[in-house]
């Protein structure tokens, strides 16, 4: 099955990003495709390369980037939501790209399931 994932909450503050990541990993391990992850609302903060968690904690941003690299997952950050929150090309982590809400609509059209994580 082809999955699209929407992440609507920032990292560390909320379980949504962790759950989305674990879901994506499980889906891929189960032989499914994760075609795109779309970051919206505070979810755009998952893409900040300035993120520096303590060393004994998980690195949410790098974890997404690694998933993207290893499994060709398209990580898209909503431009309008990103600009509101100070996420720009200059502080965008590797593996992510900034684009528009059309990419979310496209994921809804092209994927078999679109799964949302957030409140």
């Amino acid at each position, binding site marked *: 099955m082809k999955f699209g994932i*929407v992440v*609507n909450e920032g990292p560390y503050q909320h379980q949504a990003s962790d759950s989305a990541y674990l879901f994506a990993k499980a889906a891929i391990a189960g032989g499914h495709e994760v075609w795109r992850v779309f970051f*919206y*609302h505070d979810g755009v903060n998952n893409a900040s390369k300035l993120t520096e968690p303590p060393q004994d904690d998980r690195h949410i941003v790098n974890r997404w980037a690694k998933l993207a690299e290893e499994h060709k997952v398209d990580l898209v950050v909503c431009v*309008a*939501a990103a600009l509101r929150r100070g996420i720009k090309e200059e502080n965008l982590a590797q593996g992510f790209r900034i684009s*528009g*809400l*059309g990419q*979310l*609509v*496209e994921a*809804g*059209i092209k994927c078999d399931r*679109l799964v*949302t994580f957030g*409140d």
Partner: protein
Amino acid sequence: MSEMKKFMFVNRKAPYGTIYALESLEVVLITAAFDQDVSLAFLDDGVYQLKKGQQTKGIETKNFSPAYRALEGYDIEKLYVEKESLEARGIVEEDLLVDVTVLTRAEMGALMDEQDVVLSF
């Protein structure tokens, strides 16, 4: 993208206090621009998004409620409000900014079941 799917946007939060309602509207407009079948559902505190007479000056936030009246211009005409959510908050249909279809919780559930994509904000 000529393929058309049924998108439902489920609005469950009050219009101010968090950004979900405003950013939900942005997705709704884009989805309509992609010629998809768009419907909006309002339940829980989301019913407050459609309340007439919103005044936001005191919290120095933009009052975006006029945008709901403009939805018709984008051919977004399927607006559904949950009856139980209105009743729990003492709101009647006449208190709302726009024409809506009021559905019971069970009817709303059945409608959600018909959708291809359900996005909840």
